């Protein structure tokens, strides 16, 4: 493949990737980190363009996921240093966004293990099939399917028993 056609193909593909990865990052980190990680992700997509499968979005999410993890590791290091110096409060949650009106859901998601919550996000927000989720997380489609199923069950269960810790108290007259 010559250089020009490679560039042309990347230019055709990039806008969709940019849009999807921007959203992916906006859901998971602060705007400044999102910008950095987006350009890092694009660079890797461009460099490894020839390896990109036809289903390119899950693959690009997978790249973004690793870049984000890297960026957050760096930030955590910085933060630990800062915390030692000034004894600051812990950093705010990375998944912030506009205050979710659905408190039940937000609380339920928080009660899941991070991997379970992430699989649900990939399914509902990135709109991925188990096969796509498998590509992002680097697991088999079968494993993704099973984990997604379990995470959905667990989320439902967690939401249908709101405040189940307190429910036994004061229930008798």
């Amino acid at each position, binding site marked *: 493949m010559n250089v020009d056609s490679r560039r042309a193909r990347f230019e055709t593909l990039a806008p969709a990737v940019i849009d999807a990865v921007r959203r992916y990052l906006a*859901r998971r980190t602060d705007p400044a980190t999102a910008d950095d990680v987006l350009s890092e992700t694009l660079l890797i997509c461009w460099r490894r363009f020839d*390896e990109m499968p036809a289903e390119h979005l899950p693959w690009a999410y997978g790249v973004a996921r690793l870049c984000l993890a890297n960026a957050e590791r760096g930030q955590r290091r910085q933060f630990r240093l800062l915390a030692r110096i000034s004894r600051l409060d812990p950093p705010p949650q990375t998944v912030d966004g506009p205050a979710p009106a659905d408190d039940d859901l937000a609380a339920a998601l928080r009660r899941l293990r991070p991997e379970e919550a992430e699989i*649900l996000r990939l399914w509902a927000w990135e709109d991925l099939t188990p096969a796509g989720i498998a590509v992002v997380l680097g697991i088999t489609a079968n494993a993704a399917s099973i984990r997604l199923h379990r995470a959905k069950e667990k989320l439902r269960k967690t939401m249908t028993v709101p405040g189940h810790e307190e429910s036994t108290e004061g229930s008798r007259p």
Partner: protein
Amino acid sequence: MTDDDDLRARLRRADPAAALEPASPAQVAHLVEETMSRNTRRWALPVAAALVLLVGGAAWAATRPSAPQPVAAPASSASAPAATAGSVVLFTTGMQAKCREPEATRLAESADFAFEGTVQKIENGRVTLAVARVFRGSTVGQVEVAQEGESSETMLGSGKFEMGRDYLVSAAEGSVLICGYSGEADSIGLRELYEAAF
């Protein structure tokens, strides 16, 4: 509508990116252009090697051993030194990078030129090595390296070329592989790595 659809719809209503405005076409174009130009300017290593090795102290752009005239690789400046016949000219940029542990298979896949040589001359930041053995690539008598950075922490041994010492050096697409793939010949494990790879 299934339970799954309900659940998904409910999750989607909590999507923090729902209100995210799409990037403007100008922003997208800028980002794409920046990505493609960053790649050609700053990344001389081939893709597979770049991911694993990443260039450390020396992203050496080299003329290919077979090239009759030195041709500056994309990452190089215009100051490519003239090569004498039968020699290879390399030069360095002072990039920092992270490395992962070197693997013989990775070296075998990535390197298209590898040799053992002794530093004969260091002059004006240019190092001349007499080639003792070529592991891969065309046979040349000597290799020149313009060592611009003071040292490379990712090159085994002292981190830079020193007079009279022996080095094992490998390169891919005109860029020297460092991160444990090049260095002083007596660095622990380096010769074993070369023997295993080539």
